């Protein structure tokens, strides 16, 4: 068994909503290995998104440890975490979350901007990824000039442009019709076949079916692995 890319050890996450403490995760152990394609399943509120955010180093656990390639990153400062996210992790969201006043090409370039990649190389890489995802003729379009499926593919391109070790997708088909959703899922499966490590959060069994393994969450715990 190869070493884990990212590993959660006894992770607990509690949110504070005013006076009330809401436990989102209650002691989760999980290891994601290179080449994995995991689906996190469960009803809303089961802790899927929280788990995804912790894997993506967007949030810190209340208790427990997060190991990234064997190193404890729980106590790294915000700038170091941001850099890790920028270099090693790609995110795809349910709402696409493209920057509305940037073109498709500029949106895809954005992660490279924060990494300080020079303009020419940035443009080249962004264009290459978009073309690979079949958006070569939509480079100068703004998000509101694109269909939902196209927007999600731009978002996917933005996540892939840094060639991340880990791709995280939070309900990526939730805002798409089923045909377009299937296209995106096929893309993810294809990416995994090429060796990309992917964790997908979804409550749609059809979406989960493309993954190699399915983890079912309930009330902040992993209750089933299939």
């Amino acid at each position, binding site marked *: 068994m190869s070493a884990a890319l990212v590993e959660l050890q006894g992770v607990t996450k509690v949110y504070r909503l005013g006076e009330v403490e809401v436990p989102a995760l209650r002691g989760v152990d999980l290891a994601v290995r290179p080449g994995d394609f995991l689906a996190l399943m469960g009803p809303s509120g089961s802790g899927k998104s929280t788990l995804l*955010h912790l894997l*993506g180093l*967007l*949030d810190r656990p209340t208790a427990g440890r997060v190991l990234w390639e064997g190193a404890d990153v729980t106590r790294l400062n*915000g*700038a170091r975490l*941001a*850099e890790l*996210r*920028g*270099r090693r992790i*790609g*995110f795809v*969201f349910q*709402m696409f*979350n493209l*920057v*509305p*006043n*940037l073109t498709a090409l500029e949106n895809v370039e*954005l*992660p490279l*901007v*924060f*990494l*300080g990649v020079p*303009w020419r190389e940035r443009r080249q890489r962004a264009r290459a990824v978009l073309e690979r995802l079949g958006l070569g003729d939509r480079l100068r379009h703004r998000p509101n000039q694109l269909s939902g499926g196209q927007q999600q593919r731009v978002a996917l391109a*933005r*996540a892939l442009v*840094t060639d991340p070790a880990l791709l995280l997708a939070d309900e990526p088909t939730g805002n798409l019709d089923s045909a377009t959703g299937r296209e995106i899922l096929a893309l993810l499966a294809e990416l995994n076949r090429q060796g990309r490590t992917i964790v997908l959060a979804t409550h749609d069994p059809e979406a989960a079916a493309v993954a190699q393994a399915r983890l079912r969450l309930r009330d902040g715990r992993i209750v089933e692995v299939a």
Partner: protein
Amino acid sequence: MLLDILRLSLRNIRHRGLRSWLTVIGILIGTAAVVALISVGQGLQRTIARRVEQIVGYNTILVTARGLNLGQRIRLDVEALRAIPGVKSAIAVRTETAYVEGPGGKGFLAVLGYDPAMAEFVTEMNLTVASGRALEAPGEVLLGSRTARVLGAEAGDTVRIEGRPFRVVGILQAQRAGGFATGGLSLLDLLVISLSELRQLFPGPELVHYAVVRLADRADMALVRERIRAHLSAVGERNAALTDFEDLTRNIQSVIRGVQAFLAGIAGIALLVGGVGVMNTMYTAVLERTREIGVLKAIGAKDSHVLLLFLFESGLMGLAGGALGLLTGLGVAWVATLVVSRVFEAQGAFAPALTAGLVFGSLLFAFAVGALSGLFPAIRAAKLPPVEALRYE
């Protein structure tokens, strides 16, 4: 990378269109007010410095009662001043109150002892007569128009000053700016006779409103001042003060600067309000783009990137407001100057000042106001926890 973030900021500003413009206008008005006031103020300073130089001249010393009080008379002998080494020429303005009888009236009136040399020092002493002619010979007098009415006299008549007859040869023209040169009295209310005759009528100690001393070329100002002081104490005058061109300019300039600083301060309040407008716009922008901030952080933006993104936005709006405000302010100053010149019929060119300091200072200041106003919103944006920002609806 900075340039890329700057470009992003510019995009966001353009994207907000109308709202950005309204925010910019807030800064514009403030900057325009400050620029206009400073420009007019500096122009005024220059003009006054020039006028003072014309009236008094560089190498000139004014001898007056303390506090430049021309109403109070001081004791000095103008002949003694003329005899001081290093003094090229000197005049002293002296008036006396005399009992005057005319064909149609009589009373105690002020009589000015006139010396043609006075005109060389004081523009107002270029006496212009409305009717008749100037003084030419002993036994002649010029009347101010109000004095002429009091005495019921006109050119050709004879009036008696302290019992001695003088022939009226002319009536003085009313002057716009009056009083300063004649020790607080208007020329309209005076009789003018020659200085030597005034001395004959009032042989007592020489009491003058003020004296003007002009130095010879390359004379030592400090030395001449010392000698004038020595003369003053020799005649027992303790209440006199010496003022030279630099003192006078400094005094006037400091007054103008004070007024200008006060006005600019008030205008600065307008700029402050503009800054509050920027702050409001930026807080709104942070709120609206909370989710976007979360996304940026998820794809690798550091807090510092987000901070810069928003700081550039507010700073650029400040800069734009500053640039437009600068142009507007200069325009306003130009118009104001025209109006002022027209209303007060100011002599000589009175132009608003346009200095490099004013241009760069106002631009820098407007940028700083924008950036500072955007600081707290930008810090809030930078500190947003990414997960919360992403969840924001």
